[in-house]
């Protein structure tokens, strides 16, 4: 089930019951974009469809969107990025405590997951990765750190992520990687674009 929510005169927000459908519709529209669509922005439960009101109308776009079927993105040959991690983050012991697991088990399970970039946000190139096993779903820190180093590997809620830049942040830090996930000289600048499959491996 999808719901279409008007978002100003130049965008419509598609709201999904199933988070997995966000990337499915994104893939479908990416392959065959409706007339006048200028940008697609996936997020946790929604896909923003921005359009040029000079080239299409909301009613026409609505009809097109409701007629689309989502593409199954789980078995595609999407690129996989392997992120090498030193599991020595300052919150690793705390995360293990909250999860009720030994530290080694947290490290093993984090590596065992196969992840997909669901969407980006918070900061340029900050990719929210889904696929974290429920035992590792922990809350954010009660008070965010003022500076989290670039390359920090972190978990919060249902997501895991790599901080692309040093920035403030409230996620629990379990490790770090030297893989540059963000480089403005590159196009696209981030390795972890929506739909990319990701694995973590200890080193």
């Amino acid at each position: 089930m999808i719901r279409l929510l008007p978002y100003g005169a130049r965008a419509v927000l598609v709201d999904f019951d199933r988070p997995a459908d966000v990337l499915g519709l994104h893939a479908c529209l990416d392959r065959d974009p409706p007339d006048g669509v200028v940008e697609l922005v996936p997020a946790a439960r929604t896909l923003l469809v921005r359009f040029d009101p000079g080239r299409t109308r909301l009613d026409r776009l609505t009809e097109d969107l409701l007629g689309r079927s989502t593409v199954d993105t789980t078995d595609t040959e999407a690129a996989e990025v392997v992120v090498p991690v030193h599991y020595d983050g300052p919150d690793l012991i705390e995360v293990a405590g909250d999860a009720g697991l030994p530290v080694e088990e947290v490290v093993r399970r984090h590596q065992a997951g196969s992840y997909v970039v669901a969407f980006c946000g918070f900061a340029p190139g900050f990719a929210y990765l889904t696929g974290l096993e429920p035992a590792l779903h922990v809350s954010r820190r009660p008070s965010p750190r003022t500076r989290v180093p670039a390359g920090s590997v972190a978990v919060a809620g249902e997501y895991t992520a790599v901080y692309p830049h040093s920035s403030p942040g409230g996620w629990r830090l379990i490790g770090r990687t030297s893989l540059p996930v963000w480089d403005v000289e590159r196009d696209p600048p981030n390795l972890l674009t929506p739909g990319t499959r990701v694995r973590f491996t200890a080193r």
Partner: protein
Amino acid sequence: MKAEVLTPGILATVQDLGRPGYAAIGVGRSGAADRGSLRLANRLVGNPEGNAGIEATMGGLVLRFSSATTVAVTGAPCAITAGGRAAGPDSPIPLRAGDELVLGMPSRGLRCYVAVRGGFDVPAVLGARATDTLGGLGPPVLTAGATLPVGHRVLGPPNVDLAPRPPLPDEPVLRITPGPRLDWFTADALSTVVSRPYTATADVNRVGVRLEGPALTRARSGELPPEAAVPGALQVPPSGQPILFLADHPATGGYPVVAVVDENDLDLAAQVRPGQRIRFFQPSLPSF
């Protein structure tokens, strides 16, 4: 040919029309907060509209140009001197080599735009010469002593003497349409938004304008998972006091959006100063 920043004022940044199309990787459009004023400044000096100019906040900007050129100042009206002589806004201003361009404090409005013939030719990041103050992308915020190369991208000679513009209103009226999360609020939310003026708090920057006025009441509790935002979104944190998103808004936000300001009115919104009142208005027919 270059320009040297002698004094940047409170905040001066290089801006063009931004980097659209990167929101899916967490990069917002950024660019001039008052896009119409940057476009006009460029047209006045014969540039393509998307050349990079300088956005100066509350005046106080002093630039020195190494060679003879033509500049234009648009946006918030302020006293301008060029090479020691008074000059007017919204008009091409000829400069001699070594002349200083001085912007006084605007009498109303917040942001002035300076275009130079050929454009400020700083390196582009992701295709744009725009300083994204939230995302930390693009040219650095201007500091005293910074030098900016001037480029050669022009369309033709300046061909108007003056582009008169209506004065900025004391109490701008911004048109809104319903936002995607109107159902997170009580049924009277939109009538509350348009009922009385809001006042811009001291928290006014390129990311947005934090407002104070009629509070909006949530009809449901809980947290909204992050979702894409657009310029003009009126996002409502738990305090019930809305924040109006401007050029450097985050690509995704976590608070429900009750209404969206018409993109055509965002240039006016970008000129709102701390303490100023604004009013929202819902046209009877949606604009699409």
